[in-house]
């Protein structure tokens, strides 16, 4: 059912099965028929681990989204609220429960908190007089959710804000717990590397959690060789730039949520022969699932967008040829053979049709003048040109009142590429933004400053050129079609975070000590000793497996760059990627804005 999770070096279906088992156990505990009331936010992530059929097998007969007033009628014995631990949701639950009490037969109420019970929330339920109504109040530790064969995410949208703005490390605690779960399933990870303050914290928590468990030694043979913990604030630059891979652009333009994307329906209208189809065009967005279970998508998702067209056209030729084969099928046997392949061919054709349409939609954007201008400015900043003065394109964007997030992304990019803006420049942008978009954005600008995304240069020293040169972040000769370096994902800029991972695996961080000292937070190495029986004897030519955990979010372009490294013939390392949130520059800035 989720075969794509087992395609990679590490079979993530094992994790999926483990969390499914826990869900079943809870459902069986509430004996009898049940209805689930969902925190709407959770249905996306849950969709990645369970289908309705699984719930149905365990007597879930109705499902509702959580909202005020009374619950819709349902003739069931149990009502289960499946929610994140948020105060405002507790108020809604209380209202549901109270209005339920007044009518009809008594039900059994339960709450399943995801990923953690919260004493604060339970206190709120108590204040509202309903805490006693619940038979089971439990937690479902869905920390890391498998998204793909090499990708895990906590989908915690506030993680960055909490860690770097509020200084609340609860999400780091969840990350550490998720890592402990992974180690329980995939064995102890012998080497831990890290860079950044949060990375240090997570490593400390892991060591401490390990010490607390006196149970039998973990006897699972280790699958991972290394763990690399990376703070997002070590590399604030990368997410701000526009991603130029196929998947990255889909995310930038339409936003991918829990591996689904919603697209404008026009291009996907089923076209029948004889025309006249223009009348009943669907108005609802077309929703598509995007993961490596789809063969074509797995092939093109990580390519630079400029290399996608040729693949699609090649595929089209192959499929056409395959369908032509029917003319050559003369004997009954041959026809039978052809027919047996039809389902696969039709699926391939459907997939090709979808991605051709998506590519068209994206191309409309990438060929626009404004996209080109924006990209030019980004690339100038990243290669170190004119980062110290007011940029006229940004001024124009403000004057034309382009989306505020777009403006903020560019200003922050400029600030990061200049190690902070000159006072005069920063003040100029600040005034223009406040006058055009409203003074209340003072709060947002302050948040960005606190997070280090936007700041005034102190000491007048710009470190970025040193970092850029040492880490070779800007490559002039980039090959988008047949890439030789990770910089292809941004058509010239090599993501700093991924460069750090690459250099760690070869030749090691000792070669870049100086740059590591400029980047924020400590860098460190820990060992978790293994009993001799579990120590790996590597076969010659066998790749290491590194789990790389991005604390504070990761972009699809960075994931693409890591997959590129995994596939290098002489790379020596394959990567599995984990993160607190799959994100892009816009969703990132949005999470930091004051609403």
């Amino acid at each position, binding site marked *: 059912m989720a075969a794509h999770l087992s395609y990679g070096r590490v079979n993530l279906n094992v994790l999926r099965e483990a969390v499914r088992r826990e*869900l079943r156990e809870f459902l069986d505990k509430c004996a009898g028929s049940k209805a689930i009331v969902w925190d709407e936010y959770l249905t996306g992530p849950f969709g990645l681990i*369970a*289908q*309705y*059929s699984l*719930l149905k097998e365990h007597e879930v007969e*109705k*499902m509702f*989204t959580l*909202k*005020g007033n009374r619950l819709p009628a349902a003739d069931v014995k149990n009502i289960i609220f499946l929610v994140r631990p948020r*105060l*405002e949701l507790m*108020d809604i639950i209380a209202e549901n429960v109270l209005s339920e009490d007044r009518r009809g037969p008594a039900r059994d109420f339960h709450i399943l908190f995801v990923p953690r019970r919260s*004493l*604060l929330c339970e*206190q709120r339920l108590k204040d509202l007089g*309903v805490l006693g109504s619940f038979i089971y109040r439990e*937690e*479902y530790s869905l920390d890391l959710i498998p998204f793909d064969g090499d990708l895990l995410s906590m989908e915690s949208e506030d993680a960055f804000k909490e860690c770097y703005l*509020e*200084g*609340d490390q*609860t999400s780091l*605690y969840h990350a*550490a717990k998720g890592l*402990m779960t992974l180690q*329980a399933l995939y064995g102890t990870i012998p080497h831990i590397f890290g860079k950044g303050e949060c990375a240090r914290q997570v490593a400390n*928590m892991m060591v401490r959690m390990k010490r607390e*468990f*006196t*149970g039998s030694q973990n006897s699972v043979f280790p699958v991972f060789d290394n763990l690399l913990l990376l703070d997002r604030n070590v590399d604030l630059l990368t997410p701000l730039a526009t991603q130029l891979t196929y998947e990255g652009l889909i995310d930038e333009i339409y936003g991918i949520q829990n591996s*689904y994307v919603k697209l404008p329906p026009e291009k996907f209208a089923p*076209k029948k022969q004889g025309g006249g189809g223009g009348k009943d065009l669907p108005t609802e*967005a*077309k929703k*598509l*699932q995007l993961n490596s279970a789809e063969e074509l998508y797995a092939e093109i998702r990580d390519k630079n967008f*400029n*290399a996608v*067209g040729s693949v*699609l*056209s090649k595929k*089209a*030729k192959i*499929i*056409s040829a395959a*369908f032509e084969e029917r003319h050559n099928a003369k004997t009954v046997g041959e026809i039978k053979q052809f027919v047996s392949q039809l389902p696969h061919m*039709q*699926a391939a*054709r*459907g997939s090709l049709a979808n991605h*051709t349409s998506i*590519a068209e939609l994206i*191309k409309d954007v990438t060929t626009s003048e404004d996209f080109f201008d924006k990209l030019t400015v980004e690339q100038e900043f990243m290669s170190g040109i004119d980062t110290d003065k007011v940029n006229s394109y940004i001024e124009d964007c403000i*004057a034309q009142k382009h989306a505020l997030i777009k403006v903020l992304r560019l200003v922050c990019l400029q600030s990061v590429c200049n190690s902070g803006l000159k006072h005069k420049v920063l003040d100029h942008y*600040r005034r223009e933004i406040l006058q055009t978009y409203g*003074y*209340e954005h*003072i709060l947002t600008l302050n948040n960005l400053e606190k997070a280090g995304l936007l700041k005034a240069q102190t000491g007048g020293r710009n470190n970025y050129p040193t970092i850029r040169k040492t880490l070779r972040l800007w490559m002039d000769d980039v090959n988008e079609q047949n890439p030789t370096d990770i910089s292809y994902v941004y058509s010239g800029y090599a993501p700093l975070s991924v460069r750090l991972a690459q250099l760690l695996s070869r030749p090691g961080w000792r070669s870049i000590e100086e740059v590591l000292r400029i980047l924020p937070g400590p860098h460190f190495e820990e060992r978790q000793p293994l009993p001799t029986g579990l120590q790996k004897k590597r076969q010659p030519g066998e790749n290491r497996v590194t789990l790389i955990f991005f604390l504070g979010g990761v972009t699809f372009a960075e994931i693409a760059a890591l997959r590129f490294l995994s596939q290098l013939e002489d790379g020596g390392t394959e990567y599995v990627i984990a993160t607190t949130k799959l994100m892009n520059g816009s969703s990132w800035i949005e999470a930091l804005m004051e609403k």
Partner: protein
Amino acid sequence: MNRTKGDEEEYWNSSKFKAFTFDDEDDELSQLKESKRAVNSLRDFVDDDDDDDLERVSWTGEPVGSISWSIKETAGNSGSTPEGREQLKGRNSFYTQLPKPTSTYSLSSFFKGRTRLGSFQSLSDALSDTPAKSYAPELGRPKGEYRDYSNDWSPSDTVRRLRRGKVCSLERFRSLQDKLQLLEEAVSMHDGNVITAVLIFLKRTLSKEILFRELEVRQVALRHLIHFLKEIGDQKLLLDLFRFLDRTEELALTHYREHLNIQDPEKRKEFLKTCIGLPFSAEDSAHIQDHYTLLERQIIIEVNDRHLESAGQTEIFRKHPRKASILNMPLVTTLFYACFYHYTESEGTFSSPINLKKTFKIPDKQYVLTALAARAKLRAWNDVDALFTTKNWLGYTKKRAPIGFHRVVEILHKNSAPVQILQDYVNLVEDVDTKLNLATKLKCHDVVIDTCRDLRDRQQLLAYRSKVDKGSVEEEKIDAVLSSSQIRWKN
């Protein structure tokens, strides 16, 4: 499948996929066209039944059987979302209406607030008899598990139990030293849930002064308390805390943030007034002052204009009824509004654009841009003209635009200015290439022809000739230029 090449071409170009015609055939993505065509032609052959039949997805793309799909299925019609949103919003206001502490602003009173049952039990009482189990895959049994029934847990055992959601009374920790040890244990576990629970307990049992003092030297716990106070919206205690910590700028910003919750414009204005003079950073102080002044102006303008509009005597309001109130709009929007409805007013009125410009020190560029957009929208071309005309001391007039004339042209074009007007401004664009591009794009024939002539660029002019209509005035003019013997062409 058997369509001829020509048919396909025609199909392609006549189809609605207009965006998919490329000028540049070498473009890598023109290959998309090929695959599209292949896909389309294949439909003839395989499209017997519905497209999506194979994948079993509903039209919205939810795979049949997925959770979000099933919610809609099993809930029937009851789950219309917009309505749900509204109700959710309603819930949020319910949240803010919760009983707030009145006399003392302590957290404890918040949590001891009257419950429905009128009980004043402590959190720990409420949590007794809770069956608890963590649903993480078994990671081995923690040490604490073996001493489940002791009555004498140390702070570290207590914290460990809290962490697993077990029953635990904190009331036994009476001395300050015990309480602080409890807090330190919680902090060292990094579990925000437990840290918050302990903080709630400390807040209830310690005086504000002692709590603040102890947290000042425990930064992690302090940050959790601040986050938690923001979460529950205990503004007053938060401000007290910042005051105690002498974090003046945060204090000011936190206070200022409150204005977002005040809907009534008068009250919001009064509130903003209280923000002036708070210890913001030097840059922000000026902006906060401006924010107040702006809202003050907007209230005056709004009252005045609503009156004018309803009286129906003023032409501009009759012709162009206001779409929305000007209250709480950004400064630049307000300036646009003033340029639209109050352009000719003398500097003395609050609604005059010049007054706004002076009061808020709006830069020339910004002002011109906004005024231009407003006047162009009204098609007041004389005003536009005046905006760029300057007189020098000899009385000669000269055209000058602080924003560059190419921008002027863009804005005029967006407001569909007539060609004669556009032409004048295209001519003022300094850079020749930009001018030529703009003129070509906007079909200002005279400008193109004259520019080519001045550049002595015969080839470009010939190329342009093929673009204009046959037998038109433009063609005649081009022919006249081309045959002129006065010009020494460079090509």
